[in-house]
């Protein structure tokens, strides 16, 4: 749920990175954090376990500049990917304006991708959203690995709705900003349509 403040002339939106465990959601945020001018971003907060697995969420506030005199701010969140943290995932989806679904390209993670995507749809539905009317993009991460699912097959399975999709290697930053740019654009277009 966006927050438009006419007093401080700000538009605030919430973007959630969703996907199976170890697919690279936190890595996406870390790369954005590293490559963004400190003036345009806040601190990155990671509520993680001692082994650096996301426990509740990661959070990164980004300030992208002005549109028609309004500052645009995006709050990026990740969900914990591991299956047993479902209650936390539901909480983080509350008030979401746009979603980046990060898929793990490795063949052996295909089932996990599908399960996570179905879980996302179910959790969105529980919050009153429908996947067909919420802005989302898909990122096929870890394309640099040897044992990856061919892109055509990936699209056929995960992207039946034809959402914007991107190949990425989040660890080195390939495709990270392209993905972010696409979701920001979709969220602003959705806001423009009127809520």
């Amino acid at each position: 749920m966006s927050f438009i403040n006419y007093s401080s002339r700000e538009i605030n939106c919430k973007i959630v990175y969703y996907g199976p465990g170890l697919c690279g959601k936190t890595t996406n945020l870390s790369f954005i954090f590293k490559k963004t001018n400190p003036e345009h971003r806040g601190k990155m907060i990671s509520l993680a376990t001692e082994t650096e697995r996301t426990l509740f969420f990661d959070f990164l506030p980004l300030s992208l500049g002005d549109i028609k005199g309004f500052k645009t701010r995006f709050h990026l969140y990740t969900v914990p990917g591991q299956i047993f943290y479902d209650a936390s995932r539901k909480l983080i989806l509350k008030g979401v304006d746009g979603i980046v679904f990060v898929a793990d390209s490795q063949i052996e993670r295909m089932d996990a991708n599908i399960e996570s995507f179905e879980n996302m749809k179910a959790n969105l539905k529980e919050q009153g959203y429908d996947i067909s009317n919420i802005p989302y993009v898909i990122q096929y991460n870890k394309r640099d690995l040897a044992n990856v699912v061919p892109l055509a097959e990936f699209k056929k399975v995960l992207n039946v709705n034809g959402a914007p999709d991107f190949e990425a290697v989040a660890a080195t930053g390939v495709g990270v900003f392209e993905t972010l740019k696409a979701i920001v654009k979709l969220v602003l277009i959705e806001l423009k349509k009127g809520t």
Partner: protein
Amino acid sequence: MPTSSLVMFEEEFKQITAVIDRLLKEANAKVVFLVDKDGQLIAASGETGDMDTTSLASLTAGNIAATGGLAKLIGEKEFSILFHEGEKDNLHISIVGQRVIVVVIFDQRSSLGLVRLRVKKANDELNAILQKLLRRVEKKPSVQENLLAEITDTDIDKLFH
């Protein structure tokens, strides 16, 4: 969409700021924040200078969401007040009108009893302003549409240059 966008106008912002400024004084607190349940900072008053207010807002919302989840598990609607006691500073968190969160940071110059009392009074006032704001947004969606309708694809592309 399950809930509409939260929109804040100059008039209500001033009224809200006046209420939390007064709460800050009357509760003898260090800082008072108003945060949306989704983690957006709405207003702040007090010694916020070196404080990371954005992170504070986000974590507060996460905290409320997590304890709200716990409440449901034991058959409660929500826990409307949370209190965290530190060595020097304490946090008093409460929910107003099921939509926004009031965060009061205070030290030994105040007390939990005083903060609770003042927050309760301020919450009623804040709730009235927020209800008025929500009614205003429902009635006049055109204000918002006008601003957003003017956004072009070029404006969006420019954000990334």
